[in-house]
């Protein structure tokens, strides 16, 4: 059994253990769940240290037959991109557990169900990045919607049921389109010497360009819904507004990354020609997302909706980086995916604490928090700085790489994207000013600062943002190898600078 399989099964095993614990003992349940998630983190770190950075081939592979009638296998393996995303996942999960220690107590169901759902979700989040069989990927891609659906609908606030439904319907619709494309791909592989769902084999197929375009769209729309790209984003703000901080963190930080991950892994890999055909349109959508997300973020009254809209803007950057089809853009985009995970986590968790303490997520209800809750305020400030990509924080590097990478080919898009950064400082500074500075109203005077548990939860997130901001090499070197492989396969190369000498 490969270490990857172990890593995937561990949270599931944890879920089973939690399931047999007594319902009444909430503390034991939480501790057990946290213990398992920390164990997963440890195993994933161990895996990361034994990962060979220079190797282009997939590592820790394992293949077992699953549905022989369609030659579907349980096959897993990771490259640099998958490793980075899995690490991000396994680090975020215990943080989410710790940060939202009490958020499971006001749900429709017991604390136990909450942690079972989250642990199952972790298994799937690891599996979705580890899968090297497209069918396996698809199954997890769809199945992981259900835990999130129940997490939003069961433990969220406000219009949670409606938000959960909207989220699920959007995602399932995209999933069904992808299913049709997936079947098409399978049948094409059957006609070219043996049906398969293996990613490596599927990327060797020769597909005529019309078919490629249709199949590309099937996959792309599913991913564009997931990593919400304008105009398919409308489910995100409602979901983020209703979900608990922890769920939102995982939803935007990890699940939505499956969308951008899928664009790289499947769209570019299987349909290089169609990718080039659609690139101008997608770049346009990405730029619209950047600006639209930023503009709407400025106008938001609810802090969670604001974070959701900033994410739409950031996903625009990631998509721009991917479809710039340059190695810098791609590396930047993948690095961005990791950074955005942590930066969103910091935002959602601190905003969640603020909202919980104040009993409202309305930005106007905050104010002057800097004086009463300095640690919380500084954490939120740093998270905000990371969202606006302040130099010295890791998101700056990725945003810079994306813009540099896309400027080489699409200068107009890059320039427009740069204005997104300016808008970012606007929406971040406005919310920082409104909620942290100024007079402390009477209603906010009693708000308590972060306790030790919360400080322990937020510290690693901020540490990652700062450390990777100054020393991104470990992650970048892991990603670079993958980028080169993808670029070579897609048959694109970096443009040579025109201004020579």
């Amino acid at each position, binding site marked *: 059994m490969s270490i990857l399989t172990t890593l995937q099964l561990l949270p599931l095993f944890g879920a089973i253990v939690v399931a047999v614990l007594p319902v009444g003992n909430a503390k034991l349940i939480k501790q057990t769940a946290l213990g398992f998630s920390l164990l997963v983190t440890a195993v994933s770190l161990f895996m990361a240290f034994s990962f060979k950075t220079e190797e282009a081939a997939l590592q820790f592979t394992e293949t077992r037959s699953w549905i022989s009638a*369609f030659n579907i296998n349980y096959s897993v393996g990771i490259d640099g991109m998958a490793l980075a995303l899995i690490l991000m996942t396994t680090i975020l999960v215990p943080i989410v557990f710790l940060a939202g220690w009490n958020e499971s107590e006001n749900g429709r169901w017991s604390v136990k169900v909450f942690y079972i759902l989250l642990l199952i979700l972790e298994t799937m989040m690891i599996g979705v990045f580890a899968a090297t069989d497209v069918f396996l990927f698809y199954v997890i891609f769809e199945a992981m919607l259900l835990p999130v659906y129940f997490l939003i609908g069961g433990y969220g606030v406000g219009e949670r049921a409606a938000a959960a439904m909207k989220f699920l319907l959007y995602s399932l619709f995209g999933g*069904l389109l992808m299913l049709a494309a997936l079947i098409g791909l399978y049948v094409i592989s059957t006609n070219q010497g043996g049906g398969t769902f293996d990613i490596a084999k599927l990327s060797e197929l020769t597909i005529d360009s019309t078919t490629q375009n249709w199949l590309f769209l099937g996959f792309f729309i599913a991913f564009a819904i997931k990593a919400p790209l304008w105009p398919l984003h409308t489910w995100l703000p409602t979901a983020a507004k209703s979900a608990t901080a922890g769920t939102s963190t995982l939803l935007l930080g990890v699940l939505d990354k499956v969308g951008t991950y899928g664009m790289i892994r499947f769209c570019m890999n299987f349909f290089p020609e169609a990718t080039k055909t659609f690139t101008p349109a997608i770049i346009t959508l990405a730029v619209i997302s950047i600006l639209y997300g930023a503009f709407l973020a400025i106008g938001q009254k609810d802090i969670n909706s604001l974070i959701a809209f900033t994410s739409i803007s950031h996903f625009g950057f990631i998509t721009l980086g991917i479809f710039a089809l340059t190695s810098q853009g791609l590396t930047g985009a993948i690095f961005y995916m990791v950074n955005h995970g942590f930066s969103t986590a910091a935002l959602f968790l601190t905003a969640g604490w603020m909202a919980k303490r104040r009993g409202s997520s309305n930005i106007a209800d905050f104010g002057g928090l800097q004086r009463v809750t300095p640690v919380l305020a500084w954490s939120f400030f740093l998270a905000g700085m990371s969202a606006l990509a302040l130099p010295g924080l890791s998101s700056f590097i990725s945003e810079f790489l994306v813009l540099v990478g896309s400027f080489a080919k699409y200068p107009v898009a890059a320039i427009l994207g740069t204005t997104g950064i300016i808008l970012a400082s606007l929406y971040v500074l406005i919310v920082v000013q409104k909620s942290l500075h100024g007079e402390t109203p009477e209603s906010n005077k009693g708000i308590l600062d972060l306790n030790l548990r919360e400080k322990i939860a937020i510290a690693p997130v901020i540490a990652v943002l700062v450390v990777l901001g100054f020393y991104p090499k470990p992650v970048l070197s892991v990603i670079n190898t993958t980028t080169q492989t993808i670029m070579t396969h897609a048959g694109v190369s970096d443009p040579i600078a025109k201004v020579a000498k």
Partner: protein
Amino acid sequence: MLTAPKLDYALLAPILIILGAALLGVIVEAFVKQALRARLQLVIALAGISIAFGQLYLVRNEGSSIAAVTSVSIDGSGIFIQGAILLFAFLGILIIADQDHFAPQASALPGSSEEASALESGKQQTEVFPLTLFAVSGAMLFPIATDFITLFVALEVLSLPLYLMVGLSRRRRLLSQEAALKYFLLGAYSSAFFLFGAALLYGYSGSLSLNGLTDAIRGSGGNDVFLLLGAAFLSVGLLFKIGAVPFHSWTPDVYQGAPTPITGFMAAATKAAAFGATLRIFYIGLDAAQVSWKPAIAVIAVITMIFGSIAAISQRDIKRMLALSSIAHTGFVLIAVVSLNKSALSATLFYLVAYGLATIGAFGIVTLVRDSAGEVTDINRWVGLGKKSPLVAAVFSLFLLSFAGIPLTSGFVGKFAIFSAAYESGNIYLVVAGVLSSAIAVFFYLRLILMLFFAGETNGSVSVVIPSVLTRIAISISAIATVVLGLAPSLLLDVAQNFAYFLR
């Protein structure tokens, strides 16, 4: 001089055993005293089905197109579908065994003093067991019949007991009887169409058998008008039975009116039998004329899928909603009929089992949700069931997810298999239509789950009764099968592939 036909009894035994058990049931109903009857009937029915299944298992690798002269053809698909029907019958009987759903004396007029006294004295008639077995025998003959007379006889043997069974409901008897009458009248009408089509095809080919029909089409000696008309009329009869649009209108009424255990059995077994026959007729008999019928059936498949999915959204009655969802599923399976290849055949076999099991389970759960006046089928009163009895709501949701085709359930694998077979045969537009109607269908399944779990207040007057042991077994088997076939579909998929062939 007439010579007695040579019969291969070993191959026909499964049907004969069921018929024997049914006859035994009739005798028991007439002669055994009241107190023992229900139990004895149950034992006979379950034993008959089990023995028949055992015999079917023994002959599973044999095949013969002359088992009963040329009237039936025992082959892989036939045996597989017979096995599926027996499985459905077994589970169906387990739920039917809860006699609370059935009128104590079906012959008594609703509201009459006879009915009241029958209810009061607790004298419960148990004719439903032999009736079910008769229907099963017809259902087993239908998919293996290869000449039009046998097909027609099987269709009638399948249908007539069902007409009666639909009218047996203890509560809301008028609705139940209305449903029975509707089903009977429309069924008789469709049978007439079927017979008329058979007559025209006989006129075309000069032969009653499917092989004779194929030969005639290949030889193209006859008058094509007869062929087309005959095929069209024959199809009407079949499409009625499987509940395809525009011959579906009986489905919601009958599903709603029938006693719920009967609905579950009927939805699973009738559909399997009728699709078995449909596949055989189109794959064997009309294969050579596919250019003329394929477009029509394809259009019907698309309309059926989309209609079923859209119409289900507006339903407020859970049984009607499941009926319309069954119409949508009929559309999916019709895709496989049009695809005409081996993978479509094996996909259909898998799909019928997966769908049938989930259907029996789902209707089994419907029998549990009651108030003082009997079953509660109004969806609005199911609100908040998840709070009241989480397990029942969770299992029901599982069946709904399987109907919706969410991964890790058997329904997803079935859908995937059918779509990939359709794509393989070049009917990409059918895949697209299927995907779109799935997207619509997902909406009402999810809305129902949403109501079960996420609704605010619960409905006080509705309660979930504790299921009897037998019902519990039936629902558990269905639920476990739904999950197992979703996680490890190879268990059944490989079998289906081995059995996916027709003997000429």
